């Protein structure tokens, strides 16, 4: 698998766009599930009510991978999530999430060689202001016995 060729062809090109309507219940439920107790995350009447910082990672793209992306042989699994908040996410607005392939890299671990694919969703408010990014990593490892 030529990683550099894949990067050249697929990196940093939006391949998905989704709209998300966030209401106060979504935020409260997420916050409580995370164990948050701060009122600004759990009480919609709080003057600074907003989503917890990791809320952006709850959004999902419609496509998992760019169209035409080749199948990388091996076992695929969740490689983790990371989110970065630039401005608070508040209820009552329609957000737009645009997703691109942000990085491809390889490494070796106890289980052998692995390829990591990092999808990044950039989340914008209706004015086009970027509120957050949410990275979803997929790790593909060699099948055991190889």
């Amino acid at each position, binding site marked *: 698998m030529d990683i550099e060729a894949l990067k050249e062809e697929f990196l940093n090109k939006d391949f998905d766009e989704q709209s998300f309507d966030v209401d106060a219940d979504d935020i409260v439920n997420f916050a409580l599930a995370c164990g948050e107790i701060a009122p600004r995350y759990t009480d919609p009447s709080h003057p600074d009510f907003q989503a917890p910082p990791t809320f952006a990672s709850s959004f999902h793209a419609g496509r998992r991978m760019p169209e035409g992306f080749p199948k990388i042989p091996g076992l695929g699994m969740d490689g983790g999530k990371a989110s970065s908040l630039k401005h608070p996410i508040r209820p009552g607005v329609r957000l737009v999430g645009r997703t691109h392939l942000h990085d491809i890299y390889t490494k*070796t671990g106890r289980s052998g060689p692995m390829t990591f694919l990092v999808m990044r969703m950039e989340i914008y408010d209706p004015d086009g202001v970027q509120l957050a990014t949410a990275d979803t990593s997929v790790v593909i490892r060699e099948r055991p016995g190889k």
Partner: protein
Amino acid sequence: MILDLHTHSIKSDDGRAKVQNYCQWIRAREIPIDGFVLTEHRQYDATSDYSSLASEFGLCILKGSEVETEYGHVLVFGVTDALLATFDFSDIRLPLQRVVEACAAHGAIPVPCHPGRKRVGMQAHVGEFGVPEGVRIVEIYNGGSRAREDEIAQTMADDLGYLGIGGSDAHIVSHIGRCATRFPATISNTPELVEALRAEDFEALTFKT
């Protein structure tokens, strides 16, 4: 002077610790080390400047790298621009001999790390590829290795006449200082670290419980 020679910050893809938080943890928990070396995976972090943190916390903070070869992972101490130009640090299939020769040519020290681990440790590949030339030091205490893996590393070092260092391989704050290396001299910069390793006068330490 005691240095943890193997740590990762958030600059590594799997690192979850900020350098400032390492410093705070070392002081708050009175971890018995005087500093640490950031050995980020498959890269050399040439841009980050930790000198103010080093001053604030009274710690020695140096930078190296951890690259990947057919013999497993290898720490590199004494990375320079010239060394960076000789091979691709992000390549996970670097020939160890090339790394060793490049380090020799540019005054750096290669140290195979966690050599007792399956696949990513040197011992697992000696049978297939033979004993590599030019290796003088290996990591015999690794904070992330299992006890059996450290034993394999120590046995290999004894059998092949290697010197041993210790490093925590910390990826999270609370793991820093689990293993380290004691030097008789004070070390305050990378050339002094390289010189101390070259002098072959050091002792691997483990604080794992």
